[in-house]
């Protein structure tokens, strides 16, 4: 059964880049087989729907608003995400995960199962690096992803050769231009 692992967030906005960073770190270190697709989706708003339309199960990694220390990881399920209905909005691009899930549910589509691996951010502002407590939570979030996927019945193996290249958005990016060739 197909599972999508989606990293949500903006890599140019400090801790908001947690989701993309975690799915990248997971993908560098682990192989979850052909039934698991790992994607950094950025901040797509309702454009998340094409990813969720046919999906049976989705694991999302994102920052969450919650009480607690920055860097704290919290897990939520679909019912948690849908429990609080979205509020009125003016920018048509505000809606996100919750709205995309509800819209697809109305259409009789979308994933049966959703797990959200959330982290409490410290600073969300223009930066290409995570804050210390949130960067420190990346390994725990990767472990959480491994557990969640294993729980969903996927065989998750550590890669024999683990090549961890700095992401293209990092300050320490390799000689410029190389990232465009991939």
């Amino acid at each position, binding site marked *: 059964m197909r599972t999508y692992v989606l990293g949500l967030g903006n890599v140019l906005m400090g801790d*908001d880049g947690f989701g993309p960073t975690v799915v990248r770190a997971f993908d560098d270190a682990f192989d979850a087989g052909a039934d698991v697709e790992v994607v950094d989706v950025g*901040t797509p708003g309702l454009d998340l*729907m094409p990813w969720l339309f046919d999906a049976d199960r989705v694991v999302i990694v994102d920052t969450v608003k919650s009480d607690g220390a920055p860097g704290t990881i919290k897990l939520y399920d679909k019912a948690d995400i849908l429990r609080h*209905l979205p509020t009125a909005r*003016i920018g048509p*691009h505000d809606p*996100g995960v919750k709205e995309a899930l509800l819209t697809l549910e109305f259409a009789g589509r979308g994933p049966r199962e959703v797990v959200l691996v959330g982290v409490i951010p410290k600073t969300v502002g223009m930066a290409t690096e995570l804050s210390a407590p949130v960067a420190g939570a990346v390994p725990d979030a990767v472990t959480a992803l491994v557990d969640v996927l294993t729980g969903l019945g996927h065989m998750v193996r550590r890669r024999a050769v683990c090549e961890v290249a700095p992401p293209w958005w990092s300050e320490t990016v390799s000689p410029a231009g190389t990232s*465009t060739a991939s």
Partner: protein
Amino acid sequence: MSTHITVDPVTRIEGHLRIDVEVEGGVVKKAWSSGQMFRGIERILIGRDPRDAWLFTQRFCGVCTTVHAITSVRAVENALKLEIPPNAQYIRNLIVAAHAMHDHIVHFYQLSALDWVDVVSALKADVPKTAALAASLSDWPGNSQKEFQAVKDRLAGFVSKGQLGIFTNGYWGHPAMKLSPEVNLLAVTHYLQALDYQRRVNKVVAILGSKTPNIQNLAVGGVANAINLDNDATLNMARLYEVKDLLDSVKQFIEQVYFVDVCAIGAMYAEWLKYGGGVNNFLAVPDLPLDAKATAFDLPGGTIFNLDLKNVKSITSFEDPYFQKNVSESIAHSWYDGDWQKHPYEEETVPKYTSYDPNKDYSWIKAPRFDGHPMQVGPLAQVLVGFATGHEPTVRWAKKTLDTAGKIAGTTLPPTVLYSTLGRHAARMIRTCVISELADKHWNLLAENIGKGDTRIFNEPVFPKGEQQGFGFHEAPRGTLSHWVVIEDGKIKNYQAVVPSTWNAGPRDAKDQAGPYEASLVGNPIADTEKPLEVLRTVHSFDPCIACAIHTLDVEGRELSRVLAL
């Protein structure tokens, strides 16, 4: 006695668009549009390699990723005077076209139809009557009694479970909602069907761009799509035909569903063809270049001042000096240090927040101007420029729209009705019909060129020592987008993006000239100051997209949005 309404939905996107209106006698007298988040993200590019800029710019906004990527490579190519191979031009054009169709379908159905469609009212619809009405409007196979009944049943289930929250901005039961239950059921049915078609056209972007959102196939100098008709791993005939099938099915939806729905809703809300015109200067840039040098385009560009269509001035190339010289930005009413109006190459972005004061500074958005004038950008500008320059497909689809809506309304609609809130929706649909035809054309251009044995996709960029300046533009779904880059010794020295929603949502300038959102709200009726649906209708008609660059998921349900009527 006037009432002041603030619509400040600080939703889960931190800092966003805030609209203030002053209402007197049930009509908006004055309006202010304020961007509530500092947007200086271009600074992150300084010192980086220009070949990587597009990877960063496509993260400026989570929804408009493709457009910022395309515009960025065009800007750097302009600075280097670098041509790209025809295949690269056509592949980019197909991505541009597919992205625009996707964006417009989602905007109309998922993001703004509910300003006009009362979802709950659809529960009262008579299904056979709905089917008969639908058959009188279109041959669409998805308009069957069985389909309408299924949607009505599903809606009833959804309402009984109390899950209507997704339609919170729908204000169902609002006195300004006027459609019959049957039309509402028809629209809700198409709302659901649109989910499938936006997904199909999005797949075109994914196939050609390797991924979406955030395409991977661009390069300064061309594209990275290897073309080899005998190789399964590259762009080959099987992939090209997959793209064609998707484009064909979406074209049918656009012409038989989207076109008809906009005509019908326009006819049934004819009073909204009188309000919401706003700033009467328009700007659009040409797009879908037809050759390597980009000397000819399939979509026209130009400027119109004071709605004087006869004196349209064309913008005709990626080097156009008329465009290059006349763009500037004012910070007279924005939270930045200084009080200047500058050309993008010379701008700096130094934030200086004071407080929200409509008489002084009230927005993080700068106020772009063209030759000192505020300009309205977006589909209405695109269609008016097309109309004024005699662009055949635009003229044909615009006339067909006015004829069809006029017939449903039992009246004759002149082209001037497009200059309104609902006219903006009509213009967006007209543009989508035009782009859908042109996507076909550019698919053929690509297939023919590859058929001739041309598989070139990339010309290597070379960065000379010293300083170069370049600008790139793209006529994005929301309007004219331009990037301005200064390169020194192969590194980015300055970068500015002048985005469509800045043109439209920007504040007043030093001469106190209002921006398009502000001007378009004046004169709008407000039936209920507690639920200013009319404000949302007009602002949504622009398809605002401000600072989508940030979000944090609120799963614990804080109340984050408010409508204040004082």
